[in-house]
């Protein structure tokens, strides 16, 4: 198809989120992913070591812009404390506040 630029390459990004250990907060976080229909490959929820705070880690397949938007969207949620995006090439960015 001429004139249509190729979509940016999708790659794996590991996203690590520190958030309140409330189900409603988790649900909200998944809502961000569900709404954009971002494919998720791996998913883990663990205690963070701080009382009341969980660590949510997942791998999403997306272009870097989408991964960044997801991180920004997660980051502004009430109850989310921090968001780290680790690209498959091992570079990492922290969602800025």
């Amino acid at each position, binding site marked *: 198809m001429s004139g249509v630029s190729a979509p940016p390459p999708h790659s794996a990004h590991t996203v690590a989120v520190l958030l309140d250990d409330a189900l*409603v907060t988790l649900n909200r976080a998944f809502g961000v992913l569900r709404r954009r229909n971002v494919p998720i490959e791996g998913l883990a929820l663990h205690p963070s070591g701080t009382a009341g705070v969980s660590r949510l880690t997942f791998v999403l397949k997306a272009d870097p812009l989408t991964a960044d938007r997801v991180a920004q969207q997660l*980051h*502004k949620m009430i109850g989310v*404390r921090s968001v780290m995006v680790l690209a498959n090439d091992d570079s990492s960015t922290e969602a800025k506040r």
Partner: protein
Amino acid sequence: MSEMLSGAAILCRALVDAGVEVIFGYPGGAIMPFYHALPDHPRLRHILVRHEQAAAHAADGYARASGRVGVCVATSGPGATNLVTGLAAAYMDSSPVVAITGQVSRPMIGRDAFQETDIVGITLPITKQNYLVEDVTDLADIVAEAMAIAVDGRPGPVLIDVPKDVQNQKIEWRGAQASGAASHRDPRAGARGQSLTPGASPGSLEDGVRAAARLIAGAERPLLMVGHGVILSEAYAEVRTLAEKTGIPVITTLLGISAFPDGHPLHLGMPGMHGEVHVNRAIQNADVIVGIGLRFDDRVTGNTASFAPQARIVHIDLDRAEIGKNVPVAVGIVGDARDITRRLVAAVEPRRCERWVEHIRGFVRTRTESYRGDLSPEAILASIYEASHGDCTIVTDVGQHQMWVAKLYPYQRPNTHITSGGLGAMGFAVPAAMGVHLARPAGTVWAISGDGGFQMNMAEMATMVQEGLPVKMAVFNNGYLGMVRQWQQFFHEKRYSCTPIWSPDYVKLAEAYSIPGYRVKEASELADVVGRANAEPGPALVEFLIEQEANVYPMIPPGGSLSEPIEAEPAAAAGD
């Protein structure tokens, strides 16, 4: 001194403590304990609406007009679901609303009990935060936190779902601080995630402002685009100073209207789908655009691939997630519109843009439409402006009339234009105007609707009468769902499928509600009738029988480029 208080009484006290004065609501089984406690708290004025959707829109209107949290209350199940449209509207337009819903008792939750709906789940994507109160000892803190979250940072709605047995539970009450506040429920724990801290770090904020000032200094064809954020942060004086110091012309988005005086020589108007040709051409020719407190919505940009192709964009927004979301930016600055604009004013050198402004003036088109009985939207709006001496708040519904008001009403005072922009919810105007009146009891408020949207929430006339809310209602009656009919005319071979809409006799309808009702057919009647309606001490309804197939011009086709407006009926449609 401690006393035994029910959850319902605690809820009322917490609302009073938060400074709430007005609640819009509707009772029902699961919220009855709250309604039982309410009369003991005369500081809380309750407005009994006719549909919970109206409660949410009214709370939204109150919030937008006052800058304070608007509160609405509903019962579980259908009461709660009826709030959804209003909460979505508040969410899309960043309006601070707190909704309190009754819920079935805790032991019944999850058992499909009578009038049980998972309203927390339903409203997750349209609220900033929401709570199911599981422990009465948390209730007061949750209310305080919800009120704070609703207004903190980028405002938005918050929902609190309170099971009936929690409302009935009695606890020893020693005041809000003494109750068992869960520490992670510190309001600022939430606020931390809200990009409240401007800029990624203090250094980069200054860098951003300097970079923006440099872009402005080097620009030949700069524009300011201001949105709702300017109204939310009350950055009117700062934006005006920035415009006047630099001579940069100003574009106001639909929700930015009235953030900048309409008659100001630097004011260009509204951009986007129904923006004037000269406004959109200015965007397409600009080399620098400074956007303040807007999200570059698709109704503003048209096809983003062809939006402002020559412009480097400076985007100032409180919500970091907005920056770069819809359009690529050269400089993004996260922060309060007022604070950042003030810094920008200090950083820019005085300059003029006379040749550019002159250039834009060359794009201006004169309007040529004609209207039956000369009853043009301009004439109607001018009569409202004159009758109210330019001092009223206009609340619009959704459709053609909304666009005419946005383009033609000469707003002078800040935050006097209120509309459902992001959600575009028909039925918004009438209930939202009730909220506006309660926020600005000394002022006049006009709710302007089409015959379609008015019929969605016209039952609220009963609320106005019962509660003494003197809202002036204007119905632009064209016999059609006008905006949809226009799309059918332009894009669907003039097939007017299901858009002709019958109306009752509005004068008789008003009479049935014991409200003065008027019908205007000719422009010559305008001054007299609108003047009388405006002077009514109570609510009043004026129906304007307008041209049935008038269109809103120009129009950018959905997904089209700002460079290619439709300025007259498309030839294909005109032929038959």
